[in-house]
């Protein structure tokens, strides 16, 4: 077994066996999956105990607006408002809504009394109920019926279709491309920092624990550096792979586990509504219509999701993600290794970190402009220059990148990686044996020019 592969093996195994790696591997997908799951779950949880709200409607116009629902129970009150207010803290009412009577116009003011600070949601819910009712009354006053209104309401379904060179049509979703690009770019940014600084810390560890001289009496410094870089790259790929698999697994498990309850709830709601319809026929025609419209829209929505998913070129995106992650990582981690070799402890790394962090942070800042104009000169140049290309190219790829740009970027990234590795190797082999010396850029330059 060659020495480099022994080093790779050690670097890989010691990291993968660490508790922090296992924790990150498990926590990562849970956090990621919870991004999808928690909103769904919260939607399911909504309701609980229905809030009981007393209504004092002096105007007498709003009664039909307040229908009991899962989350709200409405109690109409006629007695004295002041005594009701006094009794409020001890009663089971969440609050009292008072709508005063107005003489001339329709009443547009109301007051909500409650024992505790009412939540924003309660306020906006009550407000929207009143607004809907008031709109309906106004429409009726103008002589416009519900059907006319529904026919006036417009929702333009806009789909953009991209023509590729061979004349085939491709549906394109700019929003999706943006999201996918940003996601890939941020993950690459994050991983370059995370695994790059692992390389740096590894080098510093070897230096401060003074094992370095023992090791390089067996292997060449360059072999040790490359072994470390490759070993940690494999840790990174392992982590990504596990995250993808676990996130997907958790998401799948969740959706199958909850699909039954979702269906059940929908059925329940439907049953309840039809019951309400028979009970209070004629009173909430509009609401019911809206419900039916919603249900009719579910199928097209599902279709659209599939459409969107199909519009993403997964093999291209995953392939280029892996390439640009590896390329960017290899290039930057060589620099991280050089920094690690030049200092005695982590606190001294600051001055050398700046030139590395600037292009990375710049890429993330510029990313929003690239998204707006993925074909522009800024996007072109930054996606060609190796220091920024791993992040910027990732943003451009979902929008489609000309073969020429892509090839140039790939070649330059490979050259950039070879160049930084060569440079880093020179700093590294001198730096690892240098102790107790404050190193500056002038010193590094001497090391680069110095032959071993």
């Amino acid at each position, binding site marked *: 077994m060659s020495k480099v592969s*022994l080093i790779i093996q*050690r670097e890989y195994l*010691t990291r993968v066996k660490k508790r922090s790696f296992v924790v990150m591997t498990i926590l990562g997908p849970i956090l990621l999956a919870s991004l999808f799951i928690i909103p769904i779950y919260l939607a399911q949880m909504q309701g609980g105990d229905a809030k009981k709200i007393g209504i004092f409607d002096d105007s007498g116009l709003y009664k039909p607006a307040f229908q009991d629902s899962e989350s709200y129970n409405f109690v109409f009150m006629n007695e004295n408002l002041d005594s009701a207010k006094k009794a409020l803290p001890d009663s089971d009412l969440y609050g009292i809504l008072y709508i005063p009577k107005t003489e001339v116009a329709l009443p547009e003011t109301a007051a909500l009394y409650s024992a505790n600070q009412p939540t924003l949601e309660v306020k906006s819910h009550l407000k929207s109920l009143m607004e809907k009712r008031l709109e309906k009354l106004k429409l009726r006053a103008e002589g416009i019926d519900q059907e006319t209104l529904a026919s006036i309401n417009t929702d333009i379904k806009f789909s953009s279709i991209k023509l590729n060179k061979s004349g085939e049509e491709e549906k394109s979703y700019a929003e999706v491309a943006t999201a996918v690009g940003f996601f890939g770019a941020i993950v690459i940014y994050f991983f370059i920092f995370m695994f790059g600084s692992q390389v740096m810390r590894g080098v510093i560890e070897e230096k401060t624990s003074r094992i370095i*001289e*023992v090791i390089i009496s067996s*292997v060449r410094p360059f072999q040790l550096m490359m072994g470390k870089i490759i070993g940690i790259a494999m840790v990174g790929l392992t982590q990504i792979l596990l995250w993808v698999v676990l996130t997907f697994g958790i998401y799948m498990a969740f959706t199958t586990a909850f699909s039954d309850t979702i269906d059940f709830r929908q059925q329940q709601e439907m049953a309840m509504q039809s019951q309400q319809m028979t009970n209070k026929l004629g009173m909430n025609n509009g609401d019911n219509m809206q419900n039916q419209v919603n249900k009719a829209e579910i199928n097209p929505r599902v279709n659209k999701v599939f459409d969107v998913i199909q519009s993403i070129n997964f093999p291209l995106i995953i392939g280029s993600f892996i390439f640009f992650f590896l390329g960017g990582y290899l290039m930057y981690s060589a620099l991280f290794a050089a920094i690690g070799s030049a200092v005695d402890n982590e606190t001294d790394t600051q001055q050398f970190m700046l030139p590395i962090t600037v292009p990375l942070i710049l890429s993330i800042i510029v990313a929003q402009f690239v998204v707006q104009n993925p074909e522009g000169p800024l996007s072109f140049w930054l996606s060609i220059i190796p220091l920024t290309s791993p992040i910027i190219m990732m943003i451009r790829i979902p929008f489609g990148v000309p073969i020429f740009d892509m090839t140039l970027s790939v070649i330059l990234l490979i050259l950039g990686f070879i160049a930084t590795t060569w440079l880093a190797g020179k700093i590294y082999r001198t730096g690892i044996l240098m102790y107790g010396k404050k190193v500056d850029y002038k010193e590094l330059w001497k090391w680069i020019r110095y032959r*071993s």
Partner: protein
Amino acid sequence: MELLTAENVSKTYINHKALDDVSINVPEQSIFGLLGPNGAGKTTLIRIINQITAPDEGKVYLNGERLNQNHVARIGYLPEERGLYRKMKVGEQAMYLARLKNVPKQEAYNQLKSWFQKFEIFDWWDKKVEELSKGMQQKIQFVTTVLHRPRLLIFDEPFSGFDPINANLLKQEIMKIRDEGATVIFSTHNMASVEELCDHIALIHKARKILDGPMKEVKREYSTNIFTAHLKNVDAHLPSSLGNNFKLLEKHNKDDFLHVKIQIMDKTTSPNKLVQNLSDIGEIHSFNEVIPSMNDIFIKNVQQNQ
């Protein structure tokens, strides 16, 4: 037969000359002491032999061959600045270091097991290095240095951090390894251990070699022809009755004895002559040559070359 030869080796770092035309010959199956004050260039020479750095000028031969990467497996190096991966388990780490020296997996394990048992550290196989005492870590380090049975061993201050008992154990192991056929280069400031162990020495000062040779010859060269004697019942006057060739350096009475320190002034006069003369003066109870210690030789040479 020389195992290692360095010919006219020079090395200049960015700001200073670390080695200036240094040549050494390390005979096979010997313990070679590489001596010199701090910053003299010893570590640079050792790093060149280990191919950690390359010399600017000069050549190094191992067993008659120009030094190359294949020799790495035949050299064992215990640096002065040494350490282990703190978070790694002892056994795993020792296996790793052995395999970096091209020892096959199974053999590495068998060898390690017997060494660990000898040093009574086998129970620590699955412990992390950071849980071990410093002396324990030094033992592990020593084992990993010698495990691959190198032809040439280089120890830089091997006894630092060892208690006297373990230092002794180590000394015996080093001599045993030499007796089994290996050659040892031994760099230290501890002159007592040099006297005890070394067959040959080289003294480096300010990047130059200022003294080398077999230990016995070096000592003979620096012998000062000074003798001490204890006499009883002295009735003559010193120094008048000693004779021309002898110089009395010191005399004092203690208990019933007269202690004297006398130098023979010309090389041709035998110490026997001195004994004769002394026996005329009084009863001789002891007679010893004052042999210069390595410590004296070291200090004398370094000061002469300031």
